[in-house]
């Protein structure tokens, strides 16, 4: 069921709206780092919020909404790209996009790193963002990604190797 309200609608109020205002900004930042695209990040967070609030009464620790929202954002992002064919198409598209002039301002010479980050496979990228932006431990990252600690180590290691290689090649 989709009901779209467009135009200058008055901002909604109430418990759900408060929940959204409180938790959406951090989730959007995370989603943006995962997707590299503002619109997709916005969509991802909205979808995660709707899905999560639908089950909110069943959450064992309802006060930990932020943690559940983070997990749902990551899972939605990774699962949407899970299948190899989709992932391949995504990589090709992102690869092209990465080569185009970006809409973001140059960040102290780090755009090369940002571009390299964008072409990482989704799970590698998620692992890097969770480790180096969310500051999660390897154990916590493994919990979010539903994998072993060893798998997280492998994901991060491969990601860092790829990033180093890409930066080196851009410098050449």
């Amino acid at each position, binding site marked *: 069921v989709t009901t779209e309200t467009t135009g200058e609608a008055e901002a909604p109020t109430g418990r759900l709206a408060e929940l959204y205002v409180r938790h959406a900004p951090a989730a959007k930042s995370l989603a943006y780092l995962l997707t590299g695209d503002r619109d997709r990040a916005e969509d991802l967070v*909205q979808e995660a919020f709707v899905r999560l609030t639908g089950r909110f009464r069943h959450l064992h620790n309802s006060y930990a909404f932020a943690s559940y929202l983070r997990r749902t954002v990551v899972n939605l992002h990774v699962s949407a790209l899970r299948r190899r064919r989709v992932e391949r198409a995504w990589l090709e598209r992102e690869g092209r996009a990465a080569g185009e002039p970006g809409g973001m301002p140059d960040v102290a010479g780090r755009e090369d790193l940002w571009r390299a980050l964008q072409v990482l496979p989704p799970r590698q990228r998620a692992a890097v963002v969770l480790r180096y932006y969310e500051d999660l431990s390897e154990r916590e990252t493994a919990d979010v990604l539903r994998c072993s600690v060893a798998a997280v180590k492998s994901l991060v290691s491969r990601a860092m190797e790829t990033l180093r290689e890409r930066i080196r090649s851009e410098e050449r």
Partner: protein
Amino acid sequence: MNDLEQELRELLRHKADEAWPRPEAPVHVIRRARRRQVATSLLAGLTAVLVGVGSFVGVRALGSNRSVPAEPQLVTDTVNGITISYPDDWFAGDPVALGIEPEPDPGEPRLVLLLSKHDPSIPGLFGCPGQAKDRAPGEVLMTVQEQVPIVGGEHNFVPWPAALEEVFEGDPITAGCYGGWTFYRAMFTSEGRFFQANVGVAPDATSADRQAMFDAFASMRFTSVSAVEGSSAVIATGTAAGEDWQLVAWRHEEGQLVLQLETEQALTGVDFPELEGDIHVATHTGFGDRTEVVVFGAVSDRVAEVRVILFGAADADILEVLPIPDEIDPRLDAFVTVVPNGAVGEVQALDDGGAIVDRRFLTTPAPVSGEVPGRILIPSGIVLTSGTSAGREWTLSASRRTDILALELLHVDGPTILESRSPQPAIVFTFEEFGEEDVEVVLFGVVSERVARVLLRGPDGSEVEAEILAIPGDVGVEGVDAFVLLAPRPLTGSRVVALDASGNELEVLPVYSTD
């Protein structure tokens, strides 16, 4: 920390700190969230009761002595990666497959196992055993929910094996459903997964059954998440409403086939531990302009051809049966096609002699009128009643989806759909708010045949009576009726009351509205 790691941290923080232009909550997101909250609260009685059983009233570790009952014999099953041994005249299963719990979304807690002494299909057994139609004496129940552990909260989960602890005795809120029951809980982790088990013991349960349940709990063994996914194959690809899709078949760790219809933005998955009959039909919407819907599903190996007959169409659409590789599932094949959104019809499975061996009713959600100019509102089922609210015309219709009654409130903004088997114990409902804050709400639902009247009782004691609507025999669902009423706002604090012919209150449900 090396230079690259440091640089990465700074870059990520810088990118994340860039301001987002719209801090307020989008109206359409909040409305979707509200509707989803209401819908899921209706369909998940067991979780709501067992997970929300209140605070600890006393902690008593149970003895870990395991006695081996002389009778009956034990059987061992694996459900969702949990292997459990239990008396062979008990029932174990997947709550989602049994229709007791709706399929949750990725990343959300999920009931993965239930175990009961009596058949879980007994109406009310898991939602409210105290009012179950065929009251089951001496019941013992267990549910296991796979949790999403809170980061930093893992200490709440002890390594398996764990002990059950008593947590609940006679909460007055649920006393009508669980009067005199004793509840036990354990939160534990195994193989990288996190679980919460709840055990309920009826006051008249025998000590042998209680012990058998504890033994079953203690017998559980778990499979790691990393083993969940097996081999997969892309069965078909295509385009609907301008968006590419692919149908993927993969094998679950427990051997059953999972079919997934995927696009870049959405995914619909169906799993087939066992096929009921010879065909299962699913639909996937969510495509760009929503003018088309992908219809897909599985058929048994005796099906040679699938036909889709849309009402009003001149000819049947004859579909090829798509083979699924044997290593994924040797029993089943698949089919897929694209139909116009709003279409209603039938999907038929035929054997190699041309005989129809099974058939399923096909409905599709109508497209949203705002996105498809000139759309004609076509109800998915048999019209029960119609009306106007907030200047919007609406139609309430009923149809059968597999063995579930589906009520559809169709209006210019799209359909609002309520699916229900038999209400537990008496009533389920949902409502459509139509956006405006100062107009009435259309509230509708399903009631059991025992219900003679439905009232909406406001916090001030005012009452609005619903119109009871008989479900026509053509729909093919028996034992239930529908109802509809126009509810005044605000709904907060209101309750929906189901009464029998003698005026006895069979069930009272609060209306979860955030208005």
